[in-house]
């Protein structure tokens, strides 16, 4: 089963939940950090990593003398990566989205292909032995989704390799990027089930409703975790999230209480599931509820509206 841990608002507690779930999950699993712009899962899982594998985008890098400056490449490019100054074509590979249109239309095949590094994917093992994989965008890189797709494909391969070696296919527990646009949706649509981590503040609630609008369109089973619940003076905020979930049939899988101790542990990079038996139990219960709520969602035909699920690897 491929489970995404997502939220609309940043800082709602995705990483915190994903890290502790990876720790207590009762079945074989792989921890995946798909928040490639700001990956933090490694801080909590302390993985030993293999060498990162860079991933590139094929971009136009140069022109041979065959170029007649006809401008066909410029005309097809929608990303301002190609310009023509007088009788000269100029390339701006940093702007390229890698659509390959320029190579396809050039009548002289005068463009040479180069590579722009998007970032890298690294595999390893968490300190407590669980397989781990993460992606990290190159600092300064604009495009996030292609690296994310590469990471998710690698995670799928890793799951299959583990399945061959151990008999059972591990579940993927995937820490997603924040927001509700391309990066978050790219990660979410590769999952079969998604946990929305809600922050019950006014900002958090607003972003949670946006996240619901985005994720409820996808063929996914959804559940909600209310983080920082029971904050002094915010009973109304908690209730607003609960009511929203009730009205939409979204199961509330856990309410994790706001505690200063927990916030401190988080700030130090410690796993909440390890700070006390009470916290460990909270995550064990959350895992059990998830397995119940998301039961069968990895079975063929369970949620498949258009064959999207089957395309991970």
């Amino acid at each position, binding site marked *: 089963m491929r489970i995404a841990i997502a939220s609309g608002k940043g800082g709602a507690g995705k990483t915190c939940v994903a890290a502790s779930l990876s720790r207590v999950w009762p079945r074989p699993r792989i921890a995946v950090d798909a928040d490639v712009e700001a990956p*933090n899962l490694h*801080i909590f899982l302390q993985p030993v990593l293999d060498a990162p594998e860079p991933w590139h985008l094929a971009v136009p890098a140069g022109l041979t003398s065959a170029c007649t400056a006809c401008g066909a490449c410029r005309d097809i490019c929608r990303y301002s990566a190609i310009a023509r100054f007088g009788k000269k074509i100029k390339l701006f590979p940093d702007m390229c989205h890698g659509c390959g249109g320029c190579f396809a239309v050039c009548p002289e095949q005068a463009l040479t292909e180069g590579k722009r590094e998007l970032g890298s994917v690294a595999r390893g093992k968490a300190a407590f032995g669980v397989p781990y994989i993460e992606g990290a965008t190159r600092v300064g890189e604009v*495009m996030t989704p292609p690296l994310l797709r590469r990471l998710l494909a690698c995670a799928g391969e890793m799951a299959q390799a583990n399945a061959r070696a151990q008999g059972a296919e591990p579940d993927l527990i995937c820490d997603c990027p924040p927001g509700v*646009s391309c990066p978050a*949706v790219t990660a979410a649509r590769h999952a079969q089930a998604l946990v929305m981590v809600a922050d019950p503040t006014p900002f958090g609630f607003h972003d949670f409703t946006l996240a619901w609008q985005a994720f409820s369109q996808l063929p996914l089973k959804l559940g909600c975790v209310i983080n920082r619940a029971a904050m002094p003076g915010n009973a109304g905020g908690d209730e607003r999230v609960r009511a929203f979930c009730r009205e939409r049939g979204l199961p509330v899988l856990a309410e994790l209480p706001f505690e200063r101790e927990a916030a401190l542990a988080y700030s130090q990079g410690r796993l909440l599931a390890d700070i006390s038996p009470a916290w460990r139990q909270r995550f064990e219960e959350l895992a059990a509820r998830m397995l119940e709520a998301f039961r069968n969602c990895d079975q063929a035909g369970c949620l498949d509206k258009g064959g999207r699920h089957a395309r991970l690897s």
Partner: protein
Amino acid sequence: MRGFREIVVISGKGGTGKTSVCAAFAALARKAVVCDLDVDVPDLHIVLSPTPRETHDFLGGNKAVIDQQACVQCGQCRELCRFGAVLERDGSFEVDTLACEGCGVCQTLCPQQAIAFPEALCGTWSVSATRFGTLVHAQLVPGQENSGKLVQVLKTRAREEAEKEGASILLCDGSPGIGCPVIASLSGASLACAVVEPTLSGLHDFQRVAGVCRQFRIPVAVIVNRADLNPEAAGEFRKLCSREGHAFLGEIPFDPAFPQACVQGLAVTERDGPCQRRIRQIWDRLLALDPAALRGQRQGPLLKPLS
């Protein structure tokens, strides 16, 4: 005051308090135009209660659509698509809209001209009046893309508003991360103001976004929010700033006044208290910074050359 400046509030990690601090600054600023560049999940309007003066559709993100009648199933579109967005099912081809990057290559090269390329409504944007002045803001349709382009639209308009009003400050609330919307937000900014939290995650993500600022030669000023949560980590930020040449503006302790103000739809600086005075001090320091001088201190490389 040293002329017009464009300040973009960033963080790297999400949830550090960008929007709350930005709202607090908006309440203190005189002659400022405010712009919410977190078009994906904008929150500033919750505190600023804007009254739109004008609202526009944001069109963009064209998506390919295959006309099944005209299609002869040659499969060229699938061959050409580098985003895996053309799916073959039972001998016919269709476009997976979410995977479609909107490059238009399939449309341009389809031998049957069987592919349409309609523009999609990706969101709306408004210029609004608020009690703190003009706010330029937007809402991307959840699940839509092109947030970078929408950020550019907002910035262009906000700059025009600032010029029209003779505002000396354009105050922008940015988004988390280091990708397309953040880079679009930073483009042309005088100064990035990072609101960070004293956690290992916060420290890690700040260094990444500061790296982006370095590449684009934008000076960075740092505010540690909820600093008393982990004074040791807060101290790390202070050291990092002096090592890297960022301006350290100060610390804001955790204060229930923040969430309380938010619940009431107020900026925290609309009430008085110790935390408010601290924020005012930080704001004054921010205004006293000379971005040009800060930029001069940086020795960062320009954009990394391509391999």
